[in-house]
């Protein structure tokens, strides 16, 4: 497989079985495209998923794929990555799979910084099980299991990840081809756990929950596309910018023209800033919010393993222990 592969080469022969109009289709296109862009090899790329609509993903990608059990994909992927660190291991999960039943594995994978690219398709609902509210559903969400509206305060994937010690956190919108493509490539390049939240539209059970900022027509005012080292500008002709108010410890919107000097420049290595960006509601911060590389878990694992998992001695050299004795006939 020397000649460069295209997005089509990464589409499997399996019939895609999401609802017509599901945001997952756009994500699938973006991922196969990104795989082609980064020159991934099908045989050394693996998609590991849990259970859910999102987790159907591996069937549709022409690479190795493991559709496992609900919530456990990060743990299985960790074992896989330790067994073969040369593999490109992607984890696809949902807001239920990854944050509800699987929350703990996600947290521990992030703090260990295992070399996995984790894509969390957040549609703020349990799709596959027919639309119950999820850990990211907003308070008051009416669903089959919360006809009167949900009362649980939702989790913020970004805050939880950063609180767990994540070293890469990015965000994108399912249908934002360039934005999603960008973070997928950055995630692929990151050595450690690259955690990406993708706002995904479930047209059947949670249609348009993200419309307030995904609508193309006023995207300029509702979306902030971050670039490290560049001023945080948005709005029509980048007319607006963000400033940090040291008294309130909060970010505030300013007219860029008015105060060019104090428009904040994005520093993706700043965890405090990252948390403020995660909280922003208008505009919503997209792109790589935080990136602070550190040795990946598998690298530390092999570095601490004197022989790098190679067998350099034989059991015979260990089996006798300190005190053996011989019985002669």
């Amino acid at each position, binding site marked *: *497989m020397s000649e460069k592969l295209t997005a089509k080469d990464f589409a*499997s*022969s*399996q019939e895609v079985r999401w609802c017509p109009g599901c945001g997952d289709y756009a994500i699938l296109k973006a991922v196969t495209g990104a795989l082609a862009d980064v020159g991934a090899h*099908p*045989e*050394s*790329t*693996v998609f*590991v998923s849990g*259970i859910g609509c999102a987790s159907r993903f*591996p*069937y549709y990608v*022409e*690479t*190795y*794929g*493991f*559709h*496992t*059990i609900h919530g*456990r994909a990060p*743990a*299985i*992927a*960790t*074992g*896989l*990555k*330790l*067994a*073969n660190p*040369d*593999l490109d291991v992607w984890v696809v999960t949902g807001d239920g799979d990854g944050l509800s039943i699987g929350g*703990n*594995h996600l947290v*521990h994978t992030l703090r260990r910084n295992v070399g996995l690219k984790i894509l969390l398709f957040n549609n703020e609902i349990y799709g596959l099980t027919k639309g119950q509210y999820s850990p990211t559903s907003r308070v008051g969400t009416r669903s089959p299991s919360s006809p009167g509206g949900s009362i649980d305060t939702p989790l913020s994937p970004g805050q939880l990840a950063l609180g767990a010690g994540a070293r890469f956190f990015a965000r994108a919108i399912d249908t934002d081809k360039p934005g999603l493509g960008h973070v997928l490539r950055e995630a692929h390049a990151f050595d450690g756990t690259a955690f990406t939240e993708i706002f995904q539209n479930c047209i059947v059970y949670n249609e348009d929950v993200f419309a307030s900022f995904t609508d193309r027509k006023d995207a300029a005012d509702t979306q902030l596309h971050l670039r490290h080292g560049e001023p945080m500008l948005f709005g029509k002709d980048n007319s607006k910018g963000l400033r940090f108010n040291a008294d309130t410890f909060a970010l505030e919107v300013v007219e860029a023209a008015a105060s060019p000097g104090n428009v904040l420049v994005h520093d993706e290595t700043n965890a405090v800033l990252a948390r403020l960006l995660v909280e922003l509601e208008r505009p919503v911060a997209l792109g790589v919010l935080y990136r602070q590389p550190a040795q990946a878990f598998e690298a530390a*694992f092999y570095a601490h*393993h*004197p*022989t790098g*998992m*190679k*067998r*350099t*001695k*034989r*059991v*015979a050299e*260990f*089996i*006798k*222990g*300190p*005190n*053996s*004795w*011989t*019985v*002669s006939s």
Partner: protein
Amino acid sequence: MLQSIVVRLAGDSGDGIQLMGSQFAVSTALSGRDFATFPDYPAEIRAPAGTTFGVSAYQINLGGDPITTAGDAPDVLVAFNPAALKVSLPMLQAGALIILNSDSFTARSLAKAGYEEDPRENGTLDRFQVVAADIGHFNLEAVKSFGLSKSEGGRCKNFWALGLLLWMFGRELEPVEAWIRRRLGGNPNLCDANVAALHAGHAFGETAELSAALPQVTTDTARLAPGEYRSVTGAEALALGIAAAGELADRPVLFCSYPITPSSPLLHRLTRLQELGVGTFQAEDEIAAICAAIGASYGGMIGVTSSSGPGIALKTEAMGLAVSAELPLLIVNWQRGGPSTGLPTKTEQSDLYQAVYGRNADTPLPVLAASSPGECFDMAIEGVRIALRHMTPVILLVDGYLSNVSEPWLIPIVEALAPIESHAAPDADSGPSARMLASQRDPDSLGRPWITPGMPGLVHRTGGLEKDYVTGHISYDPDNHQRMTEFRQAKVDAVANFIPEQRLELGPDKGDLVIVGWGSTYGPIYQAARRTGVSFVHLRHINPLPANLGELLSRFDKVLVPEMNNGQLATLLRDKLCIQPVSVCKVSGQPFRIAELVDRIEAERRGDAA
């Protein structure tokens, strides 16, 4: 000269009893005796000093072979304090020799132990020979010159007592001394102090006025098969077995586990075997542990996980995934007392139901059991062999206390063992059809090729949804599900074609009574069967059972099944063989005593059993 003798060491958790015991066991081994040990310590890390529930004990049965249990009733007791005496007294052989650390018998410690009056004075000990020595005092004398703190100095007293014991049994001091130097080399002063205590205790043995009371003991030496031996615990042997399996399969091993009593010692051991291509991963919980092991197997390493009952319960969902995806995996269960947290430090055999039947849906998998510390080595290899041959998870049941129990072990020659074959990946003609190769199975073992990510041209998808028997794609087809369900059962049944026929351990091959055992009950059953002359069958393969077992048992009028649970193997025999065994259940967290089995066997033969 005695055929064998049972010695029990008992003291406070802080007294170093376990260490003293294991050193005495090594010395016993080096003296050419057979032995079996039973460490018995409290659930608490360090229970309050002087209390009965804080007593830590180590029992050893030694002498001429075959020694297969730690012994029913101690002939010798070394009691470091009143609580230790109180707890041990009911177990002793009539007329047993009791060595007391007399200066521990203060009013306070007697009270702590719950003694209203001093048992040395109210006749409690009349039935025994008592030798009292101010062990604490003499020990401090011995180490005084090293200028240790009182508590540091006091902590040498286990070696002082060991010295005395070694004198009693006419043993060399050298190996113990060498061990102390190895272990405490870092602190020469402390090291010398312990050695001094050891010698002082030994010298004390010679002193005239005592030796009158304190007999020197010699027992038969063992008639063990010739070869090189070591003393081994179940955890040590299982760790070595896992490493050996990796060597025999020529694959690295990834051991993924979450600590739990009594499984943790295996994890601890394996962290020391890195040069054998063994890696360890301490996961955030048992589910993550088995899942990481499954991921490792999916990636081509030998995935192994270990826990005890409560942790295994959490792993059962993931076991189903390994069965469905046809991935190899070794799951070790160190069985402890339950239900729930139960009796974490006590042994039991009550996870057989869980191992054989304890999963949702029709999800059969092979189950093995180890009979002794040394056999943990063989069963680890057998488990991995089956897992790789049939591409299936395998459960290995071990009675919890085998983790710390030790016995002399004829050191196996790993090079001489048959290599472990795995189903090589087929040649990739790449293209769509390659995917199907992942589900082309070996006709005998029904194992599929072990295709792992990274292999070119064999790219495919797998998972926990039902798969088409031929293509491996998701299939909701009714007939295919029927076929796959039967296939999964057939695969486990096929294991029976690869394992040895069931043999008799002892006794005639037909008759009125046969005892069927499994796991660590081997020891007491062996002795009881020998004494009563009945036949004895011991199972190592629990699921599937050996093909000839039904026929073998059918030659006996009565099948007696002693187990440390409420009758779980008996259920399995009724289910698989349609026989009606008689259960002998003991669920006290304590192994069977030989005598109670002998009584039961005789009662059964007289036909007057309840």
